[in-house]
């Protein structure tokens, strides 16, 4: 295989491994690495340069993890936060824990928001239900047919559930961003 073919092969593999990054970033990285390899080839050091870079997948990971985390931290949006945690969850325990906790919190937030809306249409069965025997036995939402629990919030259910939904949403965001920031230093180069 000629040097040009080896450089092309490496940069193609690198581009493929960088999938998930914004197109502009990906093209910029690939062009820089291609120029680097071409320059080293001109010095007769292509083999050394390829060995120093490592496999295309390894090289891509140095960029990808750091960039994904940085983009998510800057964006601070819920979808990109959870998406980034999901992408990294298979490789990083922090991301996995963050994803589980943030997803759990998000699901509770969504369920509470739905129940607040449902309360408007079905005020008799939706609410905060508490067992008369055990005040710690409570739940938000729709009462089952055989429950002995009593609804205690009445018309206050909508604002309380809405506030709780926002609270859980914010907690979810905080957890996600906290885990991303924890990873920020660890995903930087020179590991």
């Amino acid at each position, binding site marked *: 295989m000629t040097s040009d073919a080896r450089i092309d092969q490496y940069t193609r593999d690198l581009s493929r491994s960088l999938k998930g990054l914004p197109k502009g*970033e990906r093209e*910029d*990285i690939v*062009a*820089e*690495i*291609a*120029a*680097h390899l*071409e*320059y*080293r080839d*001109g010095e007769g050091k292509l083999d050394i*340069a390829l060995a*120093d*870079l*490592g496999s295309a997948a*390894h*090289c891509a990971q*140095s*960029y990808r993890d*750091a*960039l994904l985390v*940085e983009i998510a931290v800057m964006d601070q949006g819920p979808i990109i936060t959870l998406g980034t945690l999901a992408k990294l969850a298979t490789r990083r325990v922090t991301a996995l824990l963050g994803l589980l906790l943030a997803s759990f919190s998000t699901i509770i937030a969504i369920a509470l928001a739905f129940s607040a809306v449902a309360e408007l249409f079905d005020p008799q069965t939706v609410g905060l239900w508490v067992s008369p025997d055990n005040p710690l036995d409570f739940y938000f939402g729709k009462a089952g047919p055989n429950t002995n629990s009593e609804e205690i919030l009445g018309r206050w259910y909508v604002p309380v559930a809405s506030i709780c939904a926002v609270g859980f949403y914010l907690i979810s965001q905080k957890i996600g961003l906290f885990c991303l920031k924890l990873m920020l*230093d660890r995903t*930087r*180069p*020179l*590991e």
Partner: protein
Amino acid sequence: MISMKIDSWKSQLRKGAAELAVLSLLDREACSGIGLLDQLTPYHHVGLSDGTLYPLLKRLERDGRIKGEWELREGGGRPIKSYSITDEGRSVACAMRAAWHDFKTDISDIVETET
């Protein structure tokens, strides 16, 4: 076992130092990744290689500490990216140098004092 722990410790030391080294070199003159690697060749304890320099440059660029511009190479070939330090990068480098100097003085005092 001890070797692994020392390697990990060295890696932590290098993380901050590599950024300072790159910013300091770019503070002297704009340079490509290749140029930086060539300048850093004698300083192998800094730990920057082909595989670690470019992701670091990308991060510094994203942080706004350096600015990259594509330039045509003399004699043809693919364009090469040249980096220059930004005003923000210069301020950061200056603060890092001051912190590094204080750190080095303290650590030298502690580590090199004979008991």
